[in-house]
């Protein structure tokens, strides 16, 4: 048996992307209107982000139950927990936390590679941003559930030819009320 099961996730994710390509390419509306590739890419990005968000919103409960991590007192603590506990637990890797902004509200997670794409072949002319969007959505959704509004984006990606994969996370604000989150 395999030592770990992340291949199941990445393979399934790859199958999903392939399916999406089919779904959107068959859409006559998409074909009729704007630049097909541009709209398609935007749709994929949004889709991935929103799906990632849905995953993140549920994942946080699982994480809090398993990890017995208490409330984080500041953003630095949050960064450490994300890198050393969460990433390790779900993806088996520990990114490093660097590039803190002077105000302490923004930092980078540096990964040696993009953990979602070790075993997946990218369909032609589909940007690697597609894969990255899911991860960004997961992080955003999960943190929103613990009252933190954050902005998450990929600053560098090995799939694009950069040396490392860099996720940039910026603290926006504390969410004061527990507003119900709609499924998107």
């Amino acid at each position: 048996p395999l030592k770990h099961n992340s291949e199941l996730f990445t393979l399934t994710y790859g199958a999903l992307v392939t399916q999406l390509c089919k779904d959107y390419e068959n859409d006559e509306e998409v074909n009729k209107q704007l630049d097909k590739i541009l709209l398609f890419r935007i749709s994929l990005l949004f889709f991935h982000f929103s799906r990632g968000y849905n995953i993140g919103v549920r994942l946080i409960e699982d994480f809090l139950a398993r990890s017995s991590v208490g409330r984080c007192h500041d953003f630095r603590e949050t960064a450490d927990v994300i890198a050393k506990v969460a990433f390790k637990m779900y993806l088996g890797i520990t990114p490093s936390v660097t590039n803190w902004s002077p105000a302490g509200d923004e930092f980078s997670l540096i990964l040696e590679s993009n953990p979602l794409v070790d075993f997946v072949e990218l369909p032609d002319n589909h940007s690697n941003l597609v894969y990255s969007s899911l991860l960004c959505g997961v992080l955003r959704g999960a943190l929103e559930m613990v009252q933190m509004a954050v902005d998450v984006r990929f600053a560098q990606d090995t799939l694009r030819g950069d040396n490392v994969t860099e996720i940039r996370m910026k603290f926006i604000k504390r969410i004061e009320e527990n507003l119900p989150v709609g499924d998107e």
Partner: protein
Amino acid sequence: MADDVLFEFLHMEIVAHVYREHATREDIDKERVTCVSTLEVMGFRVGQGLIERFTKDCPTFKDDLDIMKFLCKDFWSTIFRKQIDNLRTNHQGTYVLQDNKFALLTQFSNGKQYLEEAPKYLAFSCGLIRGALSNLGLESVVTAEVSLMPSSVFLCCRWR
């Protein structure tokens, strides 16, 4: 590592997406068939990919039953964290795999509630089995039945 949870969540999102994508297009019956087969085909691709990695360092199997046992023990436990509970065969190409607590259904109910939703959540796994077997040289048709959640029966018929 907790990535079994990640897969389960991703699986739910995939089912939701496939049903949303196809719901607006065809009539109800056609929609259901399209959705189930879309999910099955996705599972097929993943099953093929997975079995390649699993069997890289394994010796070859001596017969069909050997393959099915591998599927029920090693393959199933790596994906769903438990083995198939019961394997039956008529020794003529039909195999019945029973999982009394199928991982993708445990969140739904214990019993009859949401029974009509179950096929949506089994299609991908049927594909997984079919894909794995296909790469091992066994062409088959795989279907699933649920009469009492979360216990599921996968019916695998080899065709020559």
